[in-house]
């Protein structure tokens, strides 16, 4: 499959009042890779995510994923086509257990509408058990099995980050958009998130990752997209992008 037929964003513009958040934003990425989206604060990274996943209606431009046109579709339709996202502020369900957070995101649940739940209680409870088993397997993938029955509010920040990735995995989407999965983490927690992203790549899940930490970028990225003032300035190998003095000037306000 060529890169142009996987995720393609072409000529997307978005204006918030006087701010041009996305300016003729275009790029395309291929499958099976970790692509890091970098850029200074306010570059439009989260806006790109919102435009891809249908949380924001772009003023103009096109977004497509494989043979599907995503432009104008609602978030829930886009997830079913295979593109799912996490949120910078996680948005976990704090009054549910870790396991139930993951179950919530599993698609096509029997008993998710009241007629089936009312008139076929036994099938519903079998389905419920199967869902919990699937969710438990995902929790084990993100190394949270031990916290399965704990409420989210009792999890550490690092565990919450892992859980938010577990929850997006549950959607079954093949392309994951991860909004700052490592921010605020250090030491073991940071290492375990990086290891998880690499494992997911091995399992064939493509990832577009907003990432600020250049060390993390160098360690996990196959490719880097450099966004500045809503426009993709450069796309390429992490070393090349990080070594580019012009980009470093924009990113850090000075050379590295």
């Amino acid at each position, binding site marked *: 499959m060529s890169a142009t037929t996987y995720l393609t964003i072409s000529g997307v513009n978005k204006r918030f009042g006087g701010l041009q958040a996305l300016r003729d934003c275009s790029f395309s990425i291929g499958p099976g890779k970790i692509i890091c989206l970098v850029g200074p604060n306010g570059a439009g990274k989260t806006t790109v995510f919102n435009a891809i996943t249908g949380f924001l209606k772009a003023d103009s431009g096109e977004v497509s994923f494989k043979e599907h046109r995503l432009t104008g579709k609602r978030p*829930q339709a886009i*997830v079913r086509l295979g593109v799912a996202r996490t949120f910078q502020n996680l948005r976990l*369900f704090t009054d549910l257990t870790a396991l*139930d957070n993951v179950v919530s995101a599993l698609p096509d649940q029997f008993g*998710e509408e009241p007629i*089936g739940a009312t008139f076929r209680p036994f099938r519903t*409870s079998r389905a419920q058990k199967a869902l919990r088993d699937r969710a438990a397997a995902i929790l084990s993938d993100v190394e949270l099995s031990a916290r399965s029955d704990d409420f989210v509010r009792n999890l550490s920040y690092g565990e919450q980050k892992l859980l938010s990735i577990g929850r997006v995995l549950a*959607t079954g989407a093949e392309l994951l958009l991860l909004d700052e999965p490592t921010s605020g983490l250090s030491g073991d927690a940071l290492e375990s998130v990086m290891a998880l992203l690499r494992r997911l790549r091995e399992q064939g899940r493509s990832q577009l990752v907003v990432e600020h930490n250049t060390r993390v970028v160098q360690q996990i990225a196959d490719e880097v997209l450099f966004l500045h003032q809503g426009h993709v300035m450069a796309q390429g190998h992490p070393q090349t992008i990080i070594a580019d003095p012009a980009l470093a000037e924009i990113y850090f306000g000075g050379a590295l």
Partner: protein
Amino acid sequence: MDFLFSYLTLVAIFIILSLSTNLLVGIVGIFSVSQAAIFGLGAYIVGYCLVNDVMSFLPALAVAALASLVLNVLITLPSLRVSGDYFVVTSFGIQLLATAAFTNLTEITGGASGMPGIPPAEFFGLSFDSGFKNFLLAAIAATIASLWFALLMRAPFGRLLRAIREDELAVAAFGKNVLFAKVRAAAIAGVMAGAAGGLYAVYLSFIDPTTFDLNASVLLLTMVVLGGARTLAGSIVGPLVLLALPQLLTFIDIPTTTAAAVRQGIYGLLLILFMVFRPQGLVGEKL
């Protein structure tokens, strides 16, 4: 004995109403203050059908439940667009409108003087014409409603609704249809409240607009808060405790007119005290 059955019959009917309110307010987080309007719609439909011989009890109850389903979905729809505080105001307006309709559609409802002479429920050759029989009818209905509530809450549907209360946007981000889920919850709450209205009409044989006014909606909210939000037990304990209150007040030597005001005052005070000191109610979760 009659006194006990009368208390328990009302408790059973209010358990159904509490479940309806709990589902909307506690589980989904749609803060409705107009559940008494739906309760009234059900009561007036069944009352009207039986008094005017339009149809017998069971079909009338079915029509009442269906009409309540539709109305509750319609009045909940604004909650899909206006959030939180704004919906409370919308819902408040709907409750006032309903009271105005019950009071002024004199031809149908009998207006402020009420609708007297509603005959007892009759079906399958049985007539529910005694206190005990009415209690049985209400108790069976409350049991069905409780089982239904428990079944739904154990199913993925229950988890979906709880997730929606916490973060609609996140739920949509995982491919779930938030709109459908909310409409379904409102439909179920409507059926419960409407059916409770029908049972109330045949039990008391007289209904008037004051039973279905804003005070009644506040009473339902108080039951959910005091009993405890989001649990079946909360919706049973709430009515048990709060309906015993007027009976207890009769032991205090105050005029009946004052008693009504005292009762409202106590409801208000309980709401405040529970919100401040025990937001999870007696046997529930934090609202």
